[in-house]
């Protein structure tokens, strides 16, 4: 696909001798929000990790077109009991730009301020991360990903454990980022939220079962194959 920010072609990934993904093809362009949907163990997180270069491809290729990737891991990956402020947590996303034995540069500080502004956390910049709510924590992780000005944003289960108003706020934020020209990939179990938020859904179960706009994926047969179930709640 031309103009794709990330292109996955014929990807297979083995973990510990077990084939987790095979023959995965996926391309995501700027201005798209792609929802990766699938049951537990379908390989959603593994696909994100393959795009990040954290797991090697057994076959196939992952091509990321220029620039850095903004990664928003599952919230439990972050040590929330660490004595750091919101600002410090976001700044840590730029640590690979830091010079040895130098403090944060003017550019670093400007990027942090801009990222906090985008996720509406400027007022809480000095608060210890341990005192934040789940939704605020999620926004901190998004800000940390934005701080390198990525074209591609990968979010792993960002809606899990958030109440509905907080999910809505996060959804609005992701829609805004997409409108600004980011390519957004989000894994989720929440089919209703995904159908509403995403411009495309990618049903994954070891490989891509279906890929298209939510309206094109109403055939129950597809969902049956992806989830191995007969009824899908949350999607008409």
């Amino acid at each position, binding site marked *: 696909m031309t103009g794709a920010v990330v292109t996955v072609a014929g990807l297979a990934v083995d973990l*510990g001798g077990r084939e987790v993904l095979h023959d995965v093809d996926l391309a995501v362009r700027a201005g798209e929000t792609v929802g990766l949907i699938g049951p537990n163990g379908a390989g959603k997180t593994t696909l994100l990790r393959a795009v*990040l*270069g*954290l797991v090697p491809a057994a076959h196939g290729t992952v091509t990321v077109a220029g620039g*850095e*990737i903004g*990664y928003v*891991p599952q919230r439990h*990956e*972050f*040590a929330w009991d*660490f*004595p*750091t*402020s919101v600002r*410090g*947590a976001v700044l*840590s*996303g730029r*640590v*690979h730009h*830091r010079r*040895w*034995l130098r403090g944060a540069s003017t550019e670093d500080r400007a990027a942090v301020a801009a990222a906090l502004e985008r996720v509406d956390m400027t007022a809480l910049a000095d608060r*210890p991360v*341990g005192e934040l709510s789940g939704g605020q924590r999620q926004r901190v992780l998004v800000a*940390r990903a934005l701080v*390198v000005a990525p074209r591609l944003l990968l979010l792993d289960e960002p809606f899990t454990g958030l109440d509905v108003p907080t999910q809505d706020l996060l959804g609005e934020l992701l829609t805004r980022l997409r409108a600004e020209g980011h390519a957004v990939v989000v894994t989720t179990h929440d089919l209703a939220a995904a159908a509403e938020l995403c411009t495309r859904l990618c049903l994954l179960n070891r490989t891509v079962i279906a890929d298209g706009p939510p309206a094109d994926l109403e055939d129950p047969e597809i969902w049956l194959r992806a989830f191995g179930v007969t009824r899908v709640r949350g999607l008409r």
Partner: protein
Amino acid sequence: MTVLDVLLGPWEFDFWRRALLVGLLSGVICGLVGCHVVLRGMAFIGDAVAHSVFPGVAVAFVLGFDLVVGGAVAGLATAVLVAVFAQHRRLREDAVIGVFFAAAFGLGIVVLSAAPGYSGSLESFLFGSILGISDADVLGVAGLGALILLVALALHPRLVAVGLDRETARAIGLPVFGLDIALYVLVTLAIVMSLQAVGNVLVLALLITPAAAARLLTDRLESMMLLAPAIGAGSAVVGLYLSYAFDLAAGGLIVLVVTAVFLTCWVAAPRHGLVARRRTSRPSPKEGLHP
């Protein structure tokens, strides 16, 4: 003996000035490195390295090498072995650490028992000999301390990023395994430089306790990394004075003082102490009316 006698009396002795300097330096460096150890929940690996330094010191003693070099080599070897063996899926890191530090300590005792007149030197390895430090030792400790400080400062932002979130640190291209090894090296060197102050068994107190106390006092990493060295160094000085005043073991007193500081913080820290938590867990009527 007046208070002034106690405070000024020991300054006439060279050994006292050397002890004070080594105690201060050990307290500062261990406090600083200990912050990372406490925040990552890796106190047990500090323990492992402390014990595994012992066979290195023993072998160096028997063969007539520099004790610091011997200890550092053995500590690093253990740290790397733990890091490598912990990659195995079936074993958790704590089990691997348990295996290696006991083995290292056993090796140290066997090597020392082969040397004539070992019991005296065994005691000084285990419990420190801060009042019997030479000028050369002081120089060694100061040089090592400066090196640790420089490396710790240089790596600080990256060590923090790995401590916050290993997965994302990997994703942005940090060499996470290398930084882990670097931290183990820093822990090993901090332990080796502090052996003479408090000895092999008690060195863990200088590494862990000041950082743990500092964590109770603040939610800011920068403050924690200033408070922990201050607590460690202050405790070393107070412990030495108590040792002089009451003629009791210096290493043990330093550890008891730093423990007393920790317990005081546990009870009375401004936001996270026992008293403060009691107070905030009982909401005032006004807060109850306006949730």
